[in-house]
């Protein structure tokens, strides 16, 4: 009894303060995760009771061309959009870090697309920019080039979305800039005294000291890109078209779960996504030991 009393005395305040979070963790994360894991092995339409079908959903996935297609589209998107964003973010951060005047204003302007990028309004704007009668075609027309409907063409639709994602490189750039500011100045000075040129300074000082930031940005952008939804949904009008060329993984998950009410299948898809993200991030963490440089 005595130890119990002491235990309560020592811990009640802490538990009082984490109670909202703990209730959320159990009620909105842990329990739902368990529940969706169960659903992944069932056939469930929200109206009749879930029916256990074992690995049925997972087997069906591999025979579902729309599923494999959506995996392809998403990988394609992640593999191009993430490196492009990081490249632009790093390049512009390096330019802005040259001690120029007006840094705050420039930084703000480059950040603005990230501020609005995820919104429906910008997705609608994109649909107009690259549509058949869109701004891009009007500009091309001025140059005497005949445009096309970039959104409605299977070969280009995904690239308009990649462009939309790259356009939002500002948030990664802000993080790079903050990282660049933390690199001590005297490192560059002693490098100059030793006769190191701009390129050598970049390769031997800036880049290694920036690898933790690069790593952080890489992980965050990848996780983010795997879950992209709004732009594809709005630009394609919810279909993932043309010819499923913008059928992102999460968009297909939405269609399966909330339009066709195949919730078991959608839950299985969600778990596949979770596993993929977990595997990709752990692989990144594993390789990080070889290329991320942590200062003591």
């Amino acid at each position, binding site marked *: 009894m005595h130890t119990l009393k002491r235990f309560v005395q020592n811990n009640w305040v802490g538990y009082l303060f984490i109670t909202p979070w703990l209730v*959320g963790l159990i009620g909105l*994360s842990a329990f739902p995760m368990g529940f969706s894991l169960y659903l992944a092995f069932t056939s469930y339409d929200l109206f009749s009771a879930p029916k256990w079908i074992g690995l049925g959903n997972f087997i069906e996935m591999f025979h579902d061309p729309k599923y494999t297609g959506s995996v392809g589209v998403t990988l394609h998107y992640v593999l191009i959009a993430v490196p492009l964003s990081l490249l632009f973010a790093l390049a512009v951060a390096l330019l802005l870090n040259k001690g120029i005047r007006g840094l705050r204003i420039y930084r703000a302007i480059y950040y603005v697309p990230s501020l609005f990028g995820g*919104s*429906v309004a910008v997705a609608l704007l*994109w649909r107009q920019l690259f549509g058949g009668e869109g701004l891009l075609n*009007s500009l091309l027309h001025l140059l005497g080039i005949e445009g096309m409907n970039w959104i409605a063409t299977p070969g280009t639709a995904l690239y308009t979305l990649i462009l939309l994602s790259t356009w939002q490189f500002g948030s990664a750039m802000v993080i790079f800039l903050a990282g660049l500011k*933390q690199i001590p100045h005297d490192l560059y000075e002693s490098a100059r005294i030793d006769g190191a040129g701009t390129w050598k300074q970049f390769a031997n000082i800036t880049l290694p000291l920036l690898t933790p930031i690069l790593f*952080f940005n890489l992980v965050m952008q990848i996780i983010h890109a795997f*879950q992209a939804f709004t732009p594809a949904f709005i630009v394609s009008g919810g279909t993932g078209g043309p010819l499923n060329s913008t059928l992102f993984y999460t968009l297909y998950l939405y269609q399966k779960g909330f339009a066709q009410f195949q919730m078991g299948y959608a839950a299985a898809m*969600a778990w596949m996504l979770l596993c993929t993200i977990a595997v990709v991030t752990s692989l990144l963490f594993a390789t990080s030991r070889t290329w991320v440089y942590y200062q003591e």
Partner: protein
Amino acid sequence: MVKSKASKYALHVFIIAGCVIMIYPLLWMFVSSFKPTTDIFTNTSLIPQSVTWDNYRQGWAGLSGVTFGTFFLNTFLLVGLCIVGNLISCSMAAYAFGRLRFFMKRAFFAIMLATLMLPFHVTVIPQYIMFNTFGWVNTYLPLVLPKFLGTEAFFIFLIVQFIRSLPRELDQAAEIDGCGPIKMYWYIMIPLTVPALMTTSLFTFIWTWNDFFSQLLYISNIERFPIALALRMFTDSLGDNNWGALFAMSILSLVPVFCVFIFFQKYLIEGISTGALKG
């Protein structure tokens, strides 16, 4: 660091050219919202030949008798509730993780960090089923309640980092003066963490304002539509015929987020940076 004057100017020109490319689409949308719809596509220039407010008047009238005034009020209500929820739940949890001692604290902290990486699609289906059973679909509860239960671990982490950077002497002095942990939270931690709480509020504002997926799932009654859903519905009902009105409302929908950015840039930029640097 830049050597000659000429190269300095070249650098500025280069950076400004980049800026123009970056914001040209947004500026063009802004300008187009004042052009007659027939002009929007034929005219790529940023200076309209004639300025008209028709697009705004038409757009504001909204859909099936519900004006954009309602959509804006709905969004502000939603955003306000989410901010309050995040401030309460995240600051409480952060105080516990940052300053208090309790059983399993390390384990809970690790779990909290792990949930940062959890794609929310894994929980969204069972959550929908739960909220549907409770009869909460078509209310704001599914969108707001999670915030009161600290599901946005990013903000907990942000505030914990901030609390850890505060000098311990303050708490010790307060403790000697007989200040208990609950008073300590209210009278010392809340006032001292105001910058982190500002960042939390601002990001909650922007993210909730821009959110689409969860609104799409839960809200189907047009009178309860927030802006994002209204805009999407607007395109579906007008088709691609009335881009003018659509642009006008899109621009209006971006204004609040833009204002938040202009007035509180410092907190936002710092918030983005600290997450990465101290992590």
